[in-house]
């Protein structure tokens, strides 16, 4: 099967390409850019004039809610949402029910995802059993079953002895640890950034220090044990500074933030809007600016969706009782590009944060249009203007804090492994 995608603007950070050209796909792989390979006869031709041709996005954190929370979302609903958002590879954290701490569960998830033939699903196994922070999981067996790294999702490892050993053990095999730093005691019962807004609204705060204290510990433990640490979903200026320093000292550390934290602040809570109840909480404008500059100077490597579908009932509650999270797979790309425009960043550099870099962090072959690569391709119309409305999201989670935000550009087609699986 040969597909020709004609005359689109190809933006591929992995090859430093940004030009209008034809893209040739053969048998599910990228065959060439520009010049047709010898003997290429297109079975299907897609006209991409005026459109952008992008590698499929790689998302470092998307919750699919399977197994265990099918009333919030299913593999099928969320993988279709991923296609609509141009996300063709995603890592899912282990906070399912049951927790992804046994090889059988991981195999089942991989198998069910594969049968959908939509996005590539890369599970992150639990670092500790039941995410309880006490006993290590069988990391080797979990890796054999398909895990690409290990995570505690939003749970902490309180016991630093266990943290140390988990890092040591993972380091023995070269596994990457995807850790969101948060001190569980300082964050206890907190639902918003501990600052002016939380004080006014009478919401229990989570201080910025809850993140930096845990991060400092993790960095120190990673340095001592030689573990590969990816710092996930950071929210504060202090964290950006700590990671910048670690990188300056030559540490092989990577980090991401979420698309929500790149655009919103604590002020967006307004009058207790539960759609803006997120974990970690939205911080101050100063923190948001620090995250943005961290991305610009390379301190932060990636932007993730932190996709968390929540059912309507769980958001129809007073702020602190509502479930945290935002449905974001379908917004990651246009919101990243919106930031690029605001920050006057070349598109290719913005794309790098959601394709090439996260693929490298996961250690998977994705997020690239190099010849020979799997043909995960997104065709994007950069002209169309629209406003976010949760009700029209493909995701079963209609929960978005971006309601009514004006966006420019939409995915018009998505190919995975050379198959056209989504068309607007």
């Amino acid at each position, binding site marked *: 099967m040969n597909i020709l995608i004609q005359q689109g603007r190809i933006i591929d950070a992995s090859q430093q390409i940004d030009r209008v050209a034809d893209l040739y796909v053969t048998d599910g792989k990228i065959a060439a850019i520009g010049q047709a390979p010898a003997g290429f006869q297109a079975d299907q031709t897609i006209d991409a004039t005026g459109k952008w041709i992008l590698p499929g996005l790689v998302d470092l954190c998307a919750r699919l809610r399977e197994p265990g929370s099918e009333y919030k979302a299913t593999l099928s609903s969320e993988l279709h949402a991923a296609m609509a958002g141009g996300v063709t590879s995603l890592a899912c954290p282990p906070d399912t029910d049951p927790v992804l701490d046994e090889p059988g569960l991981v195999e089942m998830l991989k198998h069910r995802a594969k049968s959908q033939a939509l996005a590539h699903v890369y599970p992150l196994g639990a670092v500790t059993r039941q995410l309880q922070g006490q006993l290590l999981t069988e990391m080797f067996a979990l890796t054999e079953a398909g895990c690409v790294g290990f995570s505690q999702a939003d749970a902490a490892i309180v016991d630093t002895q266990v943290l140390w050993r988990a890092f040591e053990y993972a380091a023995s095999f070269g596994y990457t640890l995807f850790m969101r730093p948060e001190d569980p005691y300082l964050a206890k019962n907190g639902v918003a950034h*501990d*600052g*002016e807004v*939380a*004080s*006014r*609204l*009478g*919401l*229990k*705060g989570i*201080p910025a220090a809850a993140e930096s204290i845990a991060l400092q510990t993790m960095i120190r433990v990673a340095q001592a044990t030689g573990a590969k640490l990816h710092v996930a979903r950071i929210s504060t200026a202090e964290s950006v500074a700590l990671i910048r320093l670690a990188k300056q000292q030559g540490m092989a550390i990577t980090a991401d933030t979420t698309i929500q934290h790149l655009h919103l602040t604590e002020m967006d809570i307004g*009058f*207790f809007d*539960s759609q803006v109840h997120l974990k970690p909480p939205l911080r101050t404008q100063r923190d948001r600016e620090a995250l943005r500059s961290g991305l610009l100077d390379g301190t932060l490597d990636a932007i993730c969706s932190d996709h968390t579908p929540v059912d309507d*009932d769980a958001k*129809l*509650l*007073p*702020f*602190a*009782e509502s479930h945290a999270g935002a449905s974001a797979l379908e917004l990651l790309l246009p919101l990243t590009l919106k930031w690029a425009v605001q920050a006057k960043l070349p598109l290719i550099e913005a794309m790098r944060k959601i394709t090439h870099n996260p693929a490298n962090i996961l250690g998977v072959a994705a997020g690239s249009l190099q010849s020979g690569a799997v043909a995960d391709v997104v065709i994007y119309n950069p002209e169309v203007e629209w406003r976010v409305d949760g009700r029209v999201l493909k995701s079963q989670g209609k929960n978005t804090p971006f309601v009514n935000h004006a966006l420019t550009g939409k995915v018009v087609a998505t190919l995975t492994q050379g198959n056209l699986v989504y068309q607007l």
Partner: protein
Amino acid sequence: MYNPQLNAQGQLQHLLSIEGLPKRLLIDILDTAESFVGVAEREVKKVPLLRGKTVCNIFFENSTRTRTTFEIAAKRLSADVLNLNVSTSSQSKGETILDTVNNLIAMHADMFVVRHQQSGAAHFIAQHVPPHISVINAGDGRHAHPTQGLLDVFTIRKYKPEMHNLRVAIVGDVLHSRVARSEIHALTTLGVPEIRVIAPRTLLPTDVEKLGVQVYHDMAQGLKDVDVVMMLRLQNERMAGALLPSTQEFFQTFGLTPERLALAKPDAIVMHPGPMNRGVEIDSAVADGKQSVILPQVTYGIAVRMAVMAILAGGNAA
């Protein structure tokens, strides 16, 4: 700016928080309350303003005192009153807050008085009621207790009408106090130039200065030359969370004793939202002393709640 408490004409639709309430509306409530103070002294303690209306007290958190004052206020306005203690009924059976509210809407209630342990609960309910229903926040978590804030400034205005020339100190557990937040907003809206909070750091919210107050950790400094001392209730649970070592030490350091009160202006008044912990935040000699206006606060509380209900009913009828 969008204000969920006001309707399109700028009239009061709900009373959810003092924050964001225009000064003219606040003055309007206080002036209306003034006219209701006399009602209680009449032989027939009733006016017919809410005749035929149903006021529903929905208390998700127990409180006999506040519920009773709202009940009296509604009855003096000739309303029918329905009391619902949700903490002991439906919620324990798994009914959601919206289920409860929708049931009461179906019973044709006209006004909801709501207390809930979560900050923002009153806003949440106000967002989900039809436009002919008004919601009064009778205390939501740590966020707001606007009628308490109003009755406090009403009391201050009675004793110290020169609001532009006052120094007010709020003492105690500001962190967990919806009363303190409402008092601060009411006082700043009315133009009180100096508001102090006196408490240990563990009982003050982060960035409390941004609410427009000055912070003191020492009673002797904080009480010096103030006109009004507003005490806050200290919950016993606070000892459990490592916020304070003991009630005794709290009384030693932040309790209002006659000696400490002597540092304030000689004609300073002492207030407390009740119920009081004698010997924890306040000495009995002060609570029952001649500078205490704690009982008048309760009396005025009914007039203020009548005023809020009357204005809401009038706004909705118009």
